[in-house]
């Protein structure tokens, strides 16, 4: 059960003094996100996102199940997160939960759940096949490969990109009979997303007076507190989470919200560009 070594006092002081003079150690400006690379495919629903050196993959799969009793016409959306020990010495192998990094895993998983399920991003009504009997269950597996700070933003981009890239098999319903068509028979159908939720995280320093967007690992470890926004390009805040840490002014929260909205637009464009690129590469399916 090894734990990550916390940064030394010198490193912390150096980081802080650099930030006070508005410089980040990787020469970004305070509101810059790291270089983002989004790789989609080859299978539909597979995405790997690199945010600087942080790497997260997301894989979307689907299955037909019985719907829940209290929502017979809605499909299901499931999330699993895997914080692989190879990503960081802080991730122990064994059940998570409790203090330290175990706690962070839960917070990150919950943000993803709230961002994608709670905000109704995915159209679950469109996943219904036979009301009360058969619906599609969409499963999103998020795996953290490399932890260099700000896993939550990276994981969210990966999950959203994977969901937008995924295509489920086409289905025909004739009375009680349900026929699932293979991808060679009929073109698979993409999921309908009502909106694209993007996660933007801020880290606070210097008694909460300074904030930076997309903290890297060192910044995350030295931060006094952090705040995560999930926004879409229409300016809707889907989730806002500040789990304790240093207290900040209300005005700062609004200021961060506006920065987050701008960043969300940037990232949404990046995802759309990646999707277009992936679409060009895909072989067209001929309908016989």
């Amino acid at each position: 059960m090894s734990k990550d070594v916390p940064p030394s006092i010198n490193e912390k002081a150096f980081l802080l003094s650099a930030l006070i003079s508005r410089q980040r150690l990787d020469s970004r400006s305070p509101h810059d996100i790291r270089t983002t690379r989004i790789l989609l495919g080859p299978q539909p629903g597979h995405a790997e996102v690199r945010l600087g050196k942080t790497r997260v993959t997301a894989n979307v799969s689907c299955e037909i199940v019985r719907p829940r009793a209290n929502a017979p016409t809605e499909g299901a959306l499931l999330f699993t997160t895997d914080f692989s020990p190879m990503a960081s010495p802080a991730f122990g192998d064994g059940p998570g939960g409790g203090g330290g990094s175990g706690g962070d895993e839960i917070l990150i998983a919950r943000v993803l759940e709230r961002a994608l399920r709670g905000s109704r991003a995915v159209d679950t009504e469109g996943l219904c096949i036979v009301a009360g009997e058969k619906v599609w269950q969409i499963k999103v597996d998020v795996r953290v490969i490399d932890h260099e700070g700000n896993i939550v933003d990276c994981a969210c981009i990966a999950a959203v990109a994977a969901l937008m890239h995924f295509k489920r098999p086409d289905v025909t319903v004739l009375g009680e009979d349900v026929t699932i068509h293979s991808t060679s028979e009929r073109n698979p159908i993409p999921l309908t997303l009502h909106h694209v939720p993007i996660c933007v995280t801020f880290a606070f320093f210097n008694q909460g007076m300074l904030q930076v967007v997309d903290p890297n690992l060192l910044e995350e470890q030295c931060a006094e507190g952090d705040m995560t926004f999930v926004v879409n390009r229409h300016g809707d805040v889907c989730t806002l989470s500040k789990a304790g840490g240093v207290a900040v002014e209300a005005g700062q929260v609004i200021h961060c919200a506006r920065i987050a909205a701008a960043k969300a637009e940037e990232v949404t464009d990046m995802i759309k560009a990646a999707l277009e690129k992936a679409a060009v590469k895909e072989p067209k399916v001929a309908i016989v």
Partner: protein
Amino acid sequence: MAARLEIVSPEGLRVDGRRPAEVRRVLTRTGVLSQADGSAYIEQGNTKCLAAVYGPREPVKRAGVLHDRATINVEYNVSSFSSGERRAKLRRDRKLLEIGLMIKQTFETVVATTSFPRSEIDIYLQILQTDGGAVHTAINAATLALIDAGIPMTDYVCACSAGFVNDQAILDLNFLEESADVPTLTVALLPKSGKISMLGLESRLHIDKLEPVIALASDGCMQMKDTLDEAIRISTRNLAKTVLH
């Protein structure tokens, strides 16, 4: 799907007869449990929460011990009979774990943990009945229980919730309002500085509406501060009477 319910009537009254910026009636009691080092019970409307604080005491797990400060552990539990639908108790319900972690991180910055190195402070929160606002009631109860336990803190942590419906912000949502898909924001505030320590938003809210909701919630927190402060002063007065008589 909830039926089309009028959250705020044209006259400006809510389902339970309150005005939009009105907090529910609050009842507080401290020192209610004999076994715990500090305890408090809060009723906010029909939401009932019990908080118990043990500590600073010797930690059970050697692993989590910090050499220069106390570790704070928070367990947030919701009784299975507390809500309309029975809640089966899952050992590792992620939602409850998340709330526990958020509360832990909120109090870590306020409690003088450096006064008690190598020890732990346990905060146990039990929701006995929920009618909306369980999280913020729990935070307020935890504040009272910590003070009752005599653990030094730099400030109160006061919490309240606010939402936005029909073009106006409403304060302290009950269960009906929360489940009618009204975006609900829970805020925990440190009253001395007026700064926000914890924020949690569940459903979608447009950025332009964020400011009035945060402002209203902060206002509610300051109202809660007065209630909590009053409760502490009364219990301290009673304590002084028994000691000094």
